[in-house]
């Protein structure tokens, strides 16, 4: 307690006792004020990136906190279903966290709403102007057709074909040949369809139908590999009705029409199908790195010892794959932007991204982290996923992607139903009519943005 305060304020009658009380109170007040001035509490919203994100994310940022003694971080884990509503409400009201995780397709919408802090030239220079990150992911931190970067890629979702090596072996199919192109892929599926392994009949391929969030992400690579796209080059129109896209959609649907995707898969969602693949029901499933976690968290079975990954079968124009994931951004309404940026920069760093990937099985968004032995030597499949990511492709980062994806999912889900053979019969004109309806509705949604 500063003694000079006591001397100044002490009345004559009770100089010592009253003076001490006053000094103590003044000191306490100053202490509280000083501590409040120094203490910064950052709030952070994340998605369930690991099975226990509430524990893992604080553990991930613990080294950063150790270097920033005056800062605390309050982590809130949202879920993918309700997270969108919470984030859009925050963006609209300008009241939200300091740092938030956003799915790569969500980011342009929230940025366009004015909800995110645009990174300055100096900040961009600190992260090498995005050079360490996969270029396709770096693209998702921006808004199509506008200048500005609004965050850093945090982790990646890259899609590949997960297949059963034992099923392929038993059916006498060479995986390398099977995933070479579309024709060889169809031929391979025909061969493995119905193979009996350990007393279980294995269906060739699993993909989900109308009750699934992955419909567009699973189909898009086929369209790209046929030389088509999901949007026109200026991102103002749907491109699903181009001959290339229609060719891809016809091929993709034919796998179900031919019975290579069983109809009962089309009534399920990706989550159930991935569980069924891990349980040995299917030979091939297109999925992402999170499936690795699922494989190794499941009770040891025949699949764990007999699986591998391959890139999407090459179409007439290559073998690109869907590239997505999550980015980190600073909320526009943050009152601690400097600290928030420091945290985002830390989490966008190599060491942190490797650590997150080891916790989550999601691929690092940095090229150097994705090629680091800590990731690639963890299991041969991780190295293969890194190789496949070289052909990763993200959607154009348009603000209207959210509504557009709902339109696409609604109609393409119906396409899956059509190809199931239940109800209306699948025909090429019926498929084209459905796609025509999709394009009309999609263009109307895009019109709003133009």
């Amino acid at each position, binding site marked *: 307690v500063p003694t000079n305060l006591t001397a100044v304020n002490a009345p004559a009658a009770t100089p010592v006792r009253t003076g001490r009380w006053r000094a103590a109170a003044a000191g306490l007040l100053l202490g509280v004020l000083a501590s409040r001035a120094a203490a910064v509490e950052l709030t952070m919203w994340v998605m369930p990136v690991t099975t226990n994100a509430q524990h893992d994310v604080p553990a991930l940022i613990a080294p950063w906190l150790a270097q920033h003694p005056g800062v605390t971080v309050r982590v809130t884990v949202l879920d993918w279903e309700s997270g969108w509503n919470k984030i859009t409400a925050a963006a609209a009201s*300008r009241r939200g966290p300091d740092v938030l995780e956003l799915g790569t397709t969500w980011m342009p*919408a929230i940025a366009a709403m004015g909800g995110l802090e645009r990174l300055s030239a100096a900040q961009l220079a600190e992260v090498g102007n995005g050079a360490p990150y996969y270029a396709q992911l770096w693209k998702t931190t921006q808004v199509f057709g506008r200048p500005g970067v609004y965050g850093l890629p945090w982790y990646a979702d890259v899609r590949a074909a997960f297949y059963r090596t034992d099923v392929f072996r038993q059916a006498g199919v060479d995986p390398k040949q099977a995933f070479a192109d579309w024709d060889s892929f169809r031929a391979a599926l025909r061969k493995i369809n119905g193979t009996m392994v350990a007393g279980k009949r294995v269906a060739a391929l699993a993909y989900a139908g109308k009750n699934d969030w992955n419909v567009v992400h699973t189909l898009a690579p086929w369209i790209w590999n046929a030389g088509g796209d999901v949007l026109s080059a200026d991102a103002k129109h749907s491109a699903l009705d181009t001959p290339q896209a229609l060719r891809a959609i016809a091929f993709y649907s034919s796998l179900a029409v031919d019975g290579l995707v069983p*109809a*009962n898969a089309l009534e399920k969602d990706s989550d159930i199908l991935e569980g069924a693949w891990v349980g040995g029901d299917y030979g091939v499933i297109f999925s992402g790195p999170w499936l690795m976690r699922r494989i190794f968290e499941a009770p040891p079975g025949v699949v764990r010892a007999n699986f591998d990954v391959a890139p999407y079968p090459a179409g007439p124009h290559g073998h690109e794959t869907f590239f997505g994931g999550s980015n980190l951004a600073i909320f526009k309404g943050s009152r601690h932007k400097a600290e928030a940026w420091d945290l985002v920069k830390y989490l966008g760093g190599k060491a942190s991204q490797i650590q997150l990937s080891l916790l989550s099985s999601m691929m690092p968004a940095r090229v150097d982290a994705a090629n680091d032995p800590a990731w690639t030597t963890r299991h041969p499949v991780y190295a293969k996923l890194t190789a496949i990511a070289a052909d990763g492709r993200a959607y154009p980062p348009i603000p209207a992607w*959210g509504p557009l994806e*709902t339109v696409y*999912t609604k109609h393409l*889900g119906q396409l899956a139903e059509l190809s199931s053979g239940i109800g209306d019969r699948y025909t090429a004109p019926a498929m084209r009519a459905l796609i025509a309806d999709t394009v009309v509705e999609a263009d109307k949604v895009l019109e709003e943005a133009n």
Partner: protein
Amino acid sequence: LTAVSEPGLGALAVPARRDGARRRRRFDAFPYLLLAPAALMMVVVNLVPIVQGIRMSMLKLNQYTLSQFMDAPFVGLRNYRGVLFDASNPVHAGMLGALRNTALYSLLVTLCAVAIGLGVALLLNRDFPGKAAARTLLMLPWVVPTYVVGTLWGFMWQRDEGIVNHVLVDVLHLMDHKPFWLIGGNTFFAIVIPTVWRAWPVLMLIFLAALQAVPEELYEAARLDGANAWQRFVNITLPALKPVIVIQVMFQIIDNIYSYNIVAMMFGKGAGYPGEWGDLLMPLLTRQSFSYWRFGEGAAVSFVMMAVMLVVVGLWMRTFRRSMTDEA
């Protein structure tokens, strides 16, 4: 209480005293004071959102103008015209199909739930061992929240793994093959049956309570007059239950037209579109206005639905007004 001259407050006031010269008019604020908190809550909870909703329905409120919220561009009745008459409007797409499904769904669910509820109430309205336990057990479906009902039945309807087909085909041998319930036309039944399953128990309970209020003497007299069971049901039970049935049918229609949860949980993991035969108005409204970020048009559809519902309820009440007042 002192006399007040305002009409309609008779219940709160002693009749005005005439002294021959003039009526004394004295305002008593106390009743209003008692009503004020409730009235204030009604204004805050109901009136403010309704007025705000009406205003929203006349704004171009979408993802690009959301940050302006109530200051978004005013478009008058354009949203109403778009959602009702513009075939190319995304909110309008599929609306006729959803309207057809909703009408059929409401009719079927209401009929089945009332019929089953009434039938079981009649069975329970007699003494037998374990009656209380049976009544409690039969209420269990109603205790399950609609969200859980949708999720559970989503699994139960699965073609190969679901318990419904297992019971129908493997246990009861009622079919020679396992049908799909979640794909194709059967989707309609996949949403109707769980709704009925959850709805009838509460109706049963309400009908049972009403049945127990019917004087037993009426049945005894009818028996003495030689009336059989059917005649007793038609001439005594049904007329006695009519006020309750009329009100419950109205509630069922309202609930079913606004039905959302079961469809959303059963088919909500993608775009929330169950297909041609499973789409109802509320899921359509949610998907094609709010998921498409067309909030102004969504508000417009909501008010159209509210207006239609007011007409339906108004007509219903007008038709059965006497039956409903008989209850009192």
